[in-house]
């Protein structure tokens, strides 16, 4: 990940070899709530949150926001040892996406407004996408 002085990068993914056709800004996980608060303040709506396994115990979480027909994305990279802050205090509808990420990837999300405690998706094996 090529980071600038602000700790952000635009365009490159952590692997660095994947062509990026989307407007994605990589940010450190600890800045997530600040960035999402700013986006919410600018009246963007939450479109989706999705996790991707990029290596053993390395995951990207992609947050997509929309305003009219414009979209932009924030991305953080985490591992199982990290606790990701929930954005449900800012976007109340994020609980379904965050519970899905927890259930499928086993990533811990902190302070969700509705925590299904691993019971949103009744999977046969725990964390099948991890």
């Amino acid at each position, binding site marked *: 990940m090529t980071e600038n002085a602000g700790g952000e990068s635009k365009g490159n993914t952590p692997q660095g070899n994947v062509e990026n056709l*989307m407007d994605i800004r990589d940010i450190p996980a600890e800045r997530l709530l600040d960035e999402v608060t700013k986006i919410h303040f600018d009246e963007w709506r939450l479109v989706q949150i999705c996790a991707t396994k990029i290596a053993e115990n390395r995951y990207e979480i*992609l947050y997509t926001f929309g305003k009219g027909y414009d979209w932009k994305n924030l991305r953080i990279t985490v591992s199982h040892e990290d606790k990701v802050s929930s954005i449900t205090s800012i976007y109340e509808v994020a609980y*379904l996406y965050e519970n899905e990420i927890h259930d499928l990837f086993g990533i811990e999300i902190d302070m969700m407004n509705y925590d299904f405690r691993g019971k949103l998706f009744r999977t046969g094996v725990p964390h099948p996408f991890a």
Partner: protein
Amino acid sequence: MADNSIKKISIVPFGPQHPVLPEPIHLDLVLQDEKVIDALPSIGFVHRGLEKLVEKRDFQDFVLVAERTCGICSFGHGLGYVEAVEKIMHLETTPRTKYLRTMWAELGRMHNHLMWLGLLADAFGFESLFMETWRLREKVLDLLELTTGGRVIFSVNKVGGLRKDVTKGMLDTIMAGMTVLTKECRVATDTFLGDRDVQSRMRGVGRLSPERAEELGCCGPFLRASGVRRDLRLLGYEAYGELQFEPIVSFDGDCYARCEVRIKELYQSMDLVRQCIEKMPDGPIEVPVKGNPNGEYMARIEQPRGEALYYVKANGTKFLTRYRNRTPTYSNIPGLVETIKGAELADVAMMILTIDPCISCTER
């Protein structure tokens, strides 16, 4: 005078098995007497892990898996997936491919909306109307079967184009079918919009304001029925940029408005199919595909139930790193919960139906 009577609070489990629910979703309804004061949704009864399969299937074959996400909007799922992969691979499909895809997508919207109208009629106990709308839907399925060979899964999309072309005779049959359907649908849809009994069940029930609909991330007819003019077809993907249409919007935000939007979209789809056939270009239906995709892209299309996203991340091999499908129902569940709050218990089943939930899409 203040109401000082003691209200009884109870929790009623609703679903996952319920006569009006074609698929399993569960809601814990917190009731104060007969009024719902809160609802907690619960899904996950039919999770199949289809997205995980992308790591074990060739990216060209995966379109068949993507289609099988759902039996109703199957064409759209295949379309969204191939759009994302084609964008990553910088493939520009042929004009004929674009028009045929658009035509099939609109036929898919028609059969989805007719199916939904039937389910709605069934939910409020109008059996003959249910049977009439499903009879009409069969005619749309016949047209899809004629051109694709399938009634549920069509398997016509592939990366770079289509697997099947259609003949002039088939297009003439579809054109004639649109004329018949326009006439025959009018009887059923006039009943939905004009019948006093139907209106008494839907008018003023389950209102959602445009501000809350936006805030809660709603999409599709559910959003447009609350007065928000957003339809991803306006982005002009496939052949939509060359067709004339205006998003259907209603402003009441209640169950009746949602029904009205879908009925008007039904006729709009018939018009779009006609436009596609009139402008259908000749030429090839595929372009050569070389190499493997390497990049990431999120395609977005307007499915019958609303905006659907298809995120694809590829790593230069024939197996993709990630395929993610965010379906319209997933996005509409928080809006549904909001509309249910304050409703009468007897109306809950119909209100769930008015978002047109597709649980197999939602859980993938």
